[in-house]
């Protein structure tokens, strides 16, 4: 573990990996409470997996038309597709009451399958796709850290302007509608914020496991605080710990950092559940009969 700090002197990627984790924690801590309150963890997973299609499509297009589209990096494809997915899913969610579960599942799987299919036609880019699927915290460039910070700035600005509306649709969409709020548009806005958070987290844990960080820190915070602003604060804290400490702890071992981060998030959540149960039992026994 101390090896990590010793190596930081000559391996700049160690620092950028930590900073990227901390930066992404801001996004997932702030957006997480909306995700779990509105119960859109499944929809968020669909956005993340459809983004794989975007990554595959970009790599394929850049290989097929290197002169025209060589500049179109997989990250752009991921951003475009995840935002488009957010809009599509938002509209489907509102308009199609029945079979929505199936439809979203279909989009999830088909989106990812398209990405995997296309990557077969771009030999030599398998590793690049892998790093989008499973994360690649060991090789994050400074440019990516700035990108995550830029996403943070956008997310924070939007939340500051739209928080009351976002909270309203999470608490009681019918009441929001009666109060004159466009529920469909606000829903889509929330899903777009989720899409941006997914992009921020891609390098840290990979698109496959992104939903863990979107939901677990917020769910853990929900055990201990009762209002969204406090949940955001605590969620950012938990995410920050979970995206940095496991990385340091497994450095130099055979254990991969990205799954370790997700396991840590899960472990923290389980411990929180247990603590809550103990507290619940203790308060019950304090009032006999």
């Amino acid at each position: 573990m101390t090896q990590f700090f010793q190596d930081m002197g000559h391996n700049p990627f160690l620092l950028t990996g930590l900073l990227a984790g901390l930066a992404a924690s801001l996004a997932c801590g702030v957006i997480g409470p909306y995700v779990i309150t509105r119960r859109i963890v499944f929809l968020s997973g669909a956005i993340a997996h459809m983004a794989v299609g975007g990554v595959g499509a970009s790599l394929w297009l850049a290989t097929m038309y290197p002169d025209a589209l060589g500049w179109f990096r997989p990250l752009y494809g991921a951003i475009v597709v995840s935002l488009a997915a957010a809009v599509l899913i938002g509209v489907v969610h509102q308009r199609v009451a029945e079979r929505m579960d199936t439809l979203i599942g279909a989009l999830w799987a088909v989106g990812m399958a398209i990405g995997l299919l296309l990557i077969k036609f771009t030999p030599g880019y398998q590793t690049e796709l892998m790093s989008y699927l499973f994360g690649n915290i060991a090789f994050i460039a400074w440019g990516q850290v700035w990108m995550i910070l830029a996403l943070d700035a956008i997310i924070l600005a939007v939340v500051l302007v739209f928080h009351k509306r976002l909270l309203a649709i999470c608490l009681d969409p019918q009441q929001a509608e009666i109060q004159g709020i466009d529920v469909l548009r606000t829903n889509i806005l929330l899903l777009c914020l989720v899409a941006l958070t997914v992009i921020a987290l891609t390098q840290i844990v990979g698109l496959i496991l992104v939903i863990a960080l979107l939901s677990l820190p917020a769910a853990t915070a929900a055990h201990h605080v009762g209002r969204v602003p406090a949940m955001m604060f605590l969620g950012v804290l938990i995410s920050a710990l979970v995206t940095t400490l496991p990385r340091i702890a497994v450095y130099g071992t055979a254990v991969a950092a990205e799954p370790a981060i997700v396991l840590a998030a899960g472990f923290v959540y389980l411990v929180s559940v247990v603590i809550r149960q103990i507290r619940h039992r203790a308060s019950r026994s304090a009032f006999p009969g």
Partner: protein
Amino acid sequence: MADNPPVVDLRNVTFTYPPRQGAAPVLEDVSLDVQAGDFLGIIGPNGGGKTTLLKLILGLLEPDRGTVRVLGNNPVDVRDRIGYVPQYSQIDATVPANVLDIVLTGRLSRSSWGAWFGRSHVKAALAALAQTGIEDLAGRAIATLSGGQRQRVLIARALASDAQLLLLDEPTAGVDPHMEENVIDLLHQLNRRLPIVVVSHDVGFVSRHLKRVACLSRRITVHAAEEISAGVISEMYHGHVRAIRHVDECPLSDPGCEHGCDALAGHPHPHPAADASPSD
């Protein structure tokens, strides 16, 4: 003698839920008016159109035929002046919000941008909570409240929007009879300055406490409350109906029984004779 336009004015409203081909209308040629000071109950069987009627008044639905006017306007334009109180069970008790947060959402039409509500809106929300007698619960989580308290939170939310009309959907469902009296007292108080429309399954409650009763089962007839007879009710519900006899002396309706009886232990408690009329 009402020279003022009615607060709610439905004329010959017909509505069918999509898909409309061949489906029977949920509301057929329904006309209804609500005047200032009114205290109207709407009763009828499930599927008879009670909730649909509320949604039409709120402008959440548009009639296929006929017109709906609220406060002289298209309902959508005045939605924020209608205080809609759904059943308290509609609020998910696990939401990360306290009572004040819920009531503040009644101020959204006045202040929907930004991240927090200004002082004037918080004051209005607290005033609404005071009107429903639960000001001291402002910081509490919804999950820690009883059904009756949650109902008051929703009433406060409706009042916080400076409502000029209250619509309540089954306000006494799931509320025990003791609490029910408190809700009724609160509604009577509010009725002094607000017209109130209550949708309810509890025929006894509606006919005993409200001024007018509308029987809705696709079509509508409006009665003064005293006119409701067993015949009308059973015709409405197509069959034998057992009215809930709200006998005040029954121990189950008064947990603080002054005789010290333990209802659970089956200690006999004097009841009036079964066919005596209920005292008022």
